């Protein structure tokens, strides 16, 4: 038994030693941000202890008159707990954390051969106020607890006695809520939740001069670390896309009632992906969703907000973070170079009611390991040196290109033969257009 124990511990020591991190993460080429996906909502969850600041943005493109949202919130909200954020904040956060493409250039193998020691880079307008209306509200059991105009939005905080009345009230007041929503509403009411409902105040909007809808922010204190998604699924046409950016003090955030899976990362892909990174990433995401039977949440990014490598955008400044609601930043000690104690988790999910029956619940973990969705282009060396190492290097290339083609096919579900022909890989020859120059084949 003792011998067995020694063996077990030796394996442990070896395995811990092997897990060194890569310091060099390649040159940044392109990113795949949230704008690629239709019907995408973006939510920022700033959370520490029981305090939450929630920022909600969606890609609503229709007539602002048609816009209305109904969100269950855990507590009553005072006017000061509601704020309108700038769209640019979310765009910056998205750009900073988006899955990225990086590239490496192979070195001259002859030189590498000579200098062996050199380390190679590893690769709403609510009609309120009228007396008649409030009588009707009472008959439906709905109480308007507060009424605010914030920025371009008219906002109401509602509580209700029963869900049928609330559904009727919402429909009568021009909130396009699907019939049958009362079943979902009822569950929230029984848990003591309020409803935050908002419409666009057209007068305010034209006064402010915005042509798009800015994200709404709410701050509240509640042990509930969750996102209600069920209401939005009642009459959804097909799956929806959601990005959750969690900003926390301690570490990575994950869902406690759905599996959180790391997106495939660090894969080497063919060079042509550089020109079609957007469609590559969309296919990859769809393929991964399919592979996991649409039952998981994907981790796309987990990083300390103070830095990035390679950066697809600069880290957010302390001021931007404060605007997003990061309330624990030191106001006095302005640190323009970046933020301290802010860890960003970017989660991405595609969901429908069949595969995501329950609202998302989260927990903050103590995990501070960095993770990014990162894909690698590796440019072959194209020099003409003829040392032995160069010969070996060139002989190894076709195998590498084939490997890249297969990786790409497996990640995206694309046809491997089409990939091969795009790479100019033909059975037998397997030399890509952008590998060796054309004239190298003439006399060899």
């Amino acid at each position, binding site marked *: *038994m003792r011998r067995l*124990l020694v063996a*077990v*511990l030796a*394996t*442990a*020591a*070896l*395995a*811990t030693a*092997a*897990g060194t991190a890569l310091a060099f993460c390649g040159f940044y080429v392109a990113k795949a941000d949230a704008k690629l996906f239709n019907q995408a909502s973006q939510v920022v969850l700033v959370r520490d202890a029981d305090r939450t600041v929630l920022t909600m943005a969606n890609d609503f493109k229709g007539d602002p008159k048609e816009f209305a949202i109904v969100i269950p919130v855990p507590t009553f909200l005072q006017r000061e707990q509601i704020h309108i954020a700038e769209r640019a904040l979310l765009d910056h956060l998205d750009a900073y954390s988006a899955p990225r493409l990086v590239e490496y250039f192979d070195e001259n193998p002859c030189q590498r051969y000579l200098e062996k020691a050199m380390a190679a880079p590893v690769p709403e307008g609510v009609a309120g106020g009228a007396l008649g209306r409030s009588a009707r509200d009472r008959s439906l059991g709905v109480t308007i607890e507060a009424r605010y105009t914030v920025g371009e939005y008219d906002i109401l905080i509602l509580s209700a006695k029963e*869900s049928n009345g609330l559904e009727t009230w919402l429909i009568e007041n021009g909130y396009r809520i699907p019939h049958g929503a009362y*079943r979902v509403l*009822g*569950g929230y009411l*029984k*848990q003591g939740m309020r409803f935050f409902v908002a419409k666009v105040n057209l007068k305010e909007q034209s006064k402010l001069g915005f042509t798009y809808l800015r994200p709404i922010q709410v701050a509240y204190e*509640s*042990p*509930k*670390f*969750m996102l209600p998604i069920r209401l939005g699924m009642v009459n959804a046409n097909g799956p929806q896309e959601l990005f959750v950016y969690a900003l926390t003090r*301690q570490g990575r955030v*994950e*869902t*406690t*009632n*759905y*599996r*959180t*899976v*790391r997106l495939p990362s660090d894969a080497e892909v063919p060079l042509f992906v550089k020109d079609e990174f957007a469609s590559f990433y969309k296919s990859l995401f769809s393929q991964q969703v399919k592979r*996991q*039977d649409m*039952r998981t949440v994907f981790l796309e990014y987990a990083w300390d907000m103070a830095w990035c490598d390679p950066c697809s955008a600069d880290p957010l400044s302390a001021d931007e973070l404060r605007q997003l609601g990061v309330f624990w930043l030191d106001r006095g000690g302005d640190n323009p170079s970046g933020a301290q104690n802010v860890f960003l988790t970017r989660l991405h999910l595609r969901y429908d009611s069949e595969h995501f*029956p*329950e609202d998302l*619940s989260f*927990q903050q*973990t*103590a*995990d*501070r*390991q960095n993770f990014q969705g990162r894909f690698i282009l590796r440019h072959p060396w194209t020099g003409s040196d003829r040392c032995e190492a160069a010969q070996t290097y060139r002989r190894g290339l076709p195998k590498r290109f084939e490997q890249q083609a297969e990786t790409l096919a497996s990640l995206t579900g694309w046809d491997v033969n089409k990939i091969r022909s795009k790479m100019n890989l033909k059975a037998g020859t397997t030399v890509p257009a952008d590998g060796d120059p054309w004239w190298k084949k003439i006399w060899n």
Partner: protein
Amino acid sequence: MHGSRSWMRDPRVYQILVLASLLAYGVFALDFEIGAGRASLLVGTALLTQLAFTRLWHLPAFDPKSALISGLSLCLLLRTNSAALAILAAAITIASKFVLRVRNKHVFNPTNFGLVALMLATGRVWVSPAQWGNAAFLGFLLACLGGLVVNRAARSDVTYAFLAFYLAILFGRALWLGQPMAIPLHQLASGAFLIFTFFMISDPKTTPDTRAGRILFALLVALGAGCVHFVLYRPNGLLLSLAFLSPLVPLLDRLLPGERYVWRGASAVARAVDPAPSLREERRFA
């Protein structure tokens, strides 16, 4: 080999096989954030601690089975960035069996104690309750149910009782809220829930000695877990509830006295060496 049949009859052997297969599946097929290195560190520390206490307490024989179960359970549940905390967790898990005792019976389920102590004390340890795929869940469920049949474990009543109470809470809540039944079903489809139900609360060494006591205890733990989840809105309700209610077991044993449990097969070796006194020792620490 002496006592090989009794080894086979020990329900812990089946448990070890199930946990080890689940861990292998988790590491290779699912995205479990645990590598072979961390797993061997946890299991190795658990076994070494068991060995150390066997010597310190002058026990007649080193029995690795319980420590192996604790180590494997930790591999499946405990997550931390720090290797030192992983070692500490495994050591505390096993040590709790020997140190935290009332009337010669350990108070806490070792794995449960190790997890909760480190989660609350350091804040740098966590459990990912949702890291299981559906396929893993179904396979694991079958293996757990199979274990009940194969072992006819004397104290599976606590598992049945807990299942009944906890299911009643989840489905009752969904009915009250008017939620579709898909929600409680989804809440149950968690590997952490199964480990808890079939490997933790069922631990015959730390449950009350009488059936009435065990059923009452199962009810309290189910209520506690429901309270943590649905009133306090915190994760890991099952683990917290069991850890905080375990100190009630000595009280329940005093109110409802019964016979202490001995692992089938565990005492065979000891009995052969020195029947009477060592049997008592085995009962105490296995």
